[in-house]
């Protein structure tokens, strides 16, 4: 079966490997010259990993895994109530929980390729507009119902019908099922196909349809069913290695799941493996990194994750803890710029209004960032190297685009404006003319945590240094939940943000497409996923190349074109690529080394997220 799969995915495999190869700092030219030589690149990837590149792989000497133990995981937020995929704004902490109680249809392989997990085989039609998946037979949800084609289709349909996740799946025209097989039809040819439903997409995770039908928010329910639906959307019923036990929301509270003895990869499962090893796993929310770090040191947590570079740096060389660093497929820190103006024929076509105004109330008309000159001026004024050094403890890298090294589409030079005060001032003169403002007034909305606030202070001071009296920046710290609301509604000028973590650029299209750019409307948020609301035909063309063209070379070129468009148009002010750190007690083993039943290594860490089934603790005791 594994061989069959590899064949079907030969194309994807190739370009993924190339993309992964770019993770090394050195071999850019070699790849450019020999894009076809796939085999050699595989070796290169492995070499890079051996050199200890920041992939986050747990390279400790293998010992035999033992059962038992209770792992307490300190996570950074409680962002996700409810957890059901179609209704969740699922950030890293939520994604870790999903990985514990359920599995995704696909999972990211070690080279950035996508490998099937719940799926056994996958076959595209000749025109790549219809893909048929065969689901592994014999997998059962925690409530005993089987995972069959109908169950998968039901899960996908909840996501398609949900206003939150619907836009991301709008390219799917139909989902049909027959026995264990599911056929997904697309409006356009899909290069990636259902592989997009992997562990870095919340809709890739499967939950029991029987249970989903008891959840009142389920968009597939009729009004009558909804009235009697009494299920709790936080009490997840998945197919995962752990079964839901309890959940208490809020900071300091926890999500507890216990070992699923009937896990499909367990001793009673279809593969006859021994997963999972842990008896119980608990995710405790500890928003403050100091709190998480102290919790780890005090024995409250066995493992924590963080993207705080200062904190990661502190654990470097500390023998008492295991530190895994990963920037693969990670997010990019940036300042989003609200470019809503003019009309949007793309989203308009979907609504039957080709003249759809992006800013009908004129709310964004005073935002100078709708002018390219202003965006360029701002970009030129930011010393991203200094930001990386001072805010990233010198261990993170300044970003120049949405694709970190290692991703497809990464470029050394994207054409994004470099730190240059003279250029910044020149652009600012133009900006003053374009915006008609003097001083140019811009509002920066950021999260309330002290670190973001301080970073914003540094950014503002850089702008002050560059522009002096020409600019007036007002920084507004907003509570995190409200921040997302403002982004969705488009009620901001500039917003501190972190996003675009993912394995394949085609998974990211909905963040950048004009189709998901909704008009600014603070009273009725239209859930625009393109928060920056830019409408760019060139971007649409490039994204089509990434999404719909099966030729890996074309896809790579298109992804690079996307990157260059970001550089040219400055839709975002890039700051740094996120570095994730997993810090654990040395008793916790095999933190990131997860393989598929076929023995394929998976990507150790994807934007901080990793699998938990394979984790075990020495002597079956995580606390020691």
């Amino acid at each position: 079966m594994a061989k069959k799969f590899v064949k079907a995915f030969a194309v994807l495999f190739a370009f993924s490997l190339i993309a992964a190869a770019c993770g090394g700092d050195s071999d850019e030219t070699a790849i450019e010259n020999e894009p076809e030589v796939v085999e050699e690149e595989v070796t290169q990837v492995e070499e890079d990993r051996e050199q200890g590149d920041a992939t986050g792989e747990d390279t400790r000497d293998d010992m035999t895994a033992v059962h038992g133990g209770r792992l307490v995981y300190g996570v950074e937020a409680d962002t996700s109530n409810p957890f059901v995929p179609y209704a969740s704004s699922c950030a890293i902490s939520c994604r870790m929980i999903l990985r514990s109680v359920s599995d995704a249809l696909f999972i990211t392989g070690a080279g950035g390729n996508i490998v099937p997990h719940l799926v056994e085989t996958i076959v595209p039609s000749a025109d790549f507009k219809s893909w048929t998946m065969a689901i592994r037979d014999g997998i059962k949800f925690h409530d005993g119902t089987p995972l069959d084609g109908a169950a998968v289709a039901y899960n996908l349909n909840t996501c398609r019908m949900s206003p939150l996740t619907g836009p991301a799946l709008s390219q799917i025209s139909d989902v049909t099922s027959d026995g264990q097989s599911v056929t997904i039809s697309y409006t356009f040819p899909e290069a990636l196909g259902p592989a997009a439903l992997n562990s870095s997409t919340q809709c890739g995770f499967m939950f029991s349809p029987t249970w989903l039908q008891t959840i009142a928010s389920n968009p597939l329910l009729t009004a009558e069913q909804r009235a009697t639906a009494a299920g709790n959307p936080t009490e997840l019923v998945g197919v995962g290695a752990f079964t839901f036990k309890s959940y208490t929301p809020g900071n300091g509270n926890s999500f507890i799941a216990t070992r699923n003895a009937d896990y499909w990869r367990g001793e009673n499962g279809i593969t006859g493996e021994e997963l999972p090893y842990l008896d119980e796993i608990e995710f405790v929310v500890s928003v403050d990194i100091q709190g998480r770090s102290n919790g780890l040191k005090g024995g409250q947590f066995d493992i924590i994750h963080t993207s705080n570079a200062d904190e990661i740096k502190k654990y470097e060389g500390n023998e008492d803890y295991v530190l895994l660093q990963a920037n693969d497929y990670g997010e990019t820190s940036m300042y989003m710029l609200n470019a809503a103006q003019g009309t949007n024929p793309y989203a308009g076509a979907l609504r039957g209004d080709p003249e759809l105004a992006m800013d009908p109330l004129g709310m964004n008309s005073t935002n100078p960032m709708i002018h390219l000159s202003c965006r360029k001026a701002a970009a030129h004024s930011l010393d991203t190297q200094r930001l990386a050094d001072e805010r990233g403890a010198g261990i993170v890298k300044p970003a120049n685009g949405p694709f970190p090294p290692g991703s497809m589409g990464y470029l050394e030079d994207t054409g994004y404006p470099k730190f240059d005060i003279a250029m910044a001032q020149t652009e600012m003169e133009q900006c003053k003319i374009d915006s008609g403002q003097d001083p140019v007034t811009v509002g920066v909305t950021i999260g309330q945590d002290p670190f973001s606030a301080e970073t914003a202070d540094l950014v503002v001071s850089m702008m002050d240094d560059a522009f002096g009296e020409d600019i007036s920046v007002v920084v507004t710290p907003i509570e995190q939940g409200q921040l997302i609301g403002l982004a969705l509604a488009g009620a901001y000028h500039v917003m501190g943000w972190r996003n675009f973590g993912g394995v394949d650029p085609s998974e990211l299209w909905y963040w950048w497409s004009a189709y998901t750019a909704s008009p600014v409307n603070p009273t009725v948020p239209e859930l625009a996923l393109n928060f920056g609301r830019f409408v760019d035909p060139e971007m649409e063309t490039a994204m089509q190349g990434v999404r719909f063209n099966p030729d890996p070379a074309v896809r790579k070129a298109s992804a690079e074109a996307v990157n260059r468009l970001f550089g040219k148009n400055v839709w975002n002010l890039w700051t740094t690529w996120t570095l994730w750190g997993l810090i654990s007690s040395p008793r916790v083993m095999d933190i990131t080394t997860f393989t598929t039943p076929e023995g394929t290594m998976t990507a150790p860490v994807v934007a901080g997220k990793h699998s938990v089934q394979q984790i075990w603790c020495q002597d079956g005791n995580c606390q020691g």
Partner: protein
Amino acid sequence: MIKLKLRKRTREVDETSRTNNSLGLMFWAAVSFLAVLTFCAIFADILPFKNPTQTFKGFNKNGPSGSFLLGNDGVGRDILSRVVYGAQTSLVIAVVGTSIALIIGGSIGLAAGYYRGKVDRLLTIMLNTTLIIPPLILFISLILFLDPAAERRMFILIFTFALLSIAPIGRVVRANTMAWSEREFVLAAQTIGARNGRVMFREILPNVAPSLISYSLIVMATLIIVEGAVAFLGLSVPSPTPTWGDMINKGRPHLDVAPHITLMPALSMFLTVLSLNFIGDKLQEKFESKAAIL
């Protein structure tokens, strides 16, 4: 011999009388601290302090040094000048907030205590109404409805703080006024034909004032702390305007590598509040002992 002894005794008498009258070294230390702080805060623009919002490249999280006497914060700003400019914010909020509360609460308390009866009942209900409002909820809802973009945060802060301080001050004044109104000199003033306003402001207020002033100092200290708490939640005057609470908040992530970032503003807040409380207590003590003579 006798002469010498006499002289010595006179000096002793002098000294004892001085210590009885004086407010003590600590009092003057507190007054001088506040005086220096206020002076620096008012003339910060003229005095040779560094720009409090300028970030010095490469100096982030540096400890105290020759050019940065209290060190640098997480993004390389000069902590000394931020402490001084932060004092501006804290003092303006505390002084203006207390003054407004003093004027409004004082007038209400004076009128309620002097007129009594229906006036008293009405005004007391007004005062008590402000007491039942949960302060933080009031503040946050005001922010949400009036100032989500932090454009007039200072105004909202002062407004809320003043509103919340009116009742405590009003009640102190009312109780004091009632006690002093019992005195016959108030009736005497009415008998010679003084208007009610004159009786209140010329006869009663000077007697109420001492305890009012010392109480106001304590209110002021409380407001500084509350401002710090609000800033710690990120709800105070928006960045880059320095405030002590904001500095403490932003120093938090660096606490284990650079504790001075948090320590310096916390210390200045601590000393300011301590000084205000100390001065308030001492004055109260002094006026009370004086009142006891009467």
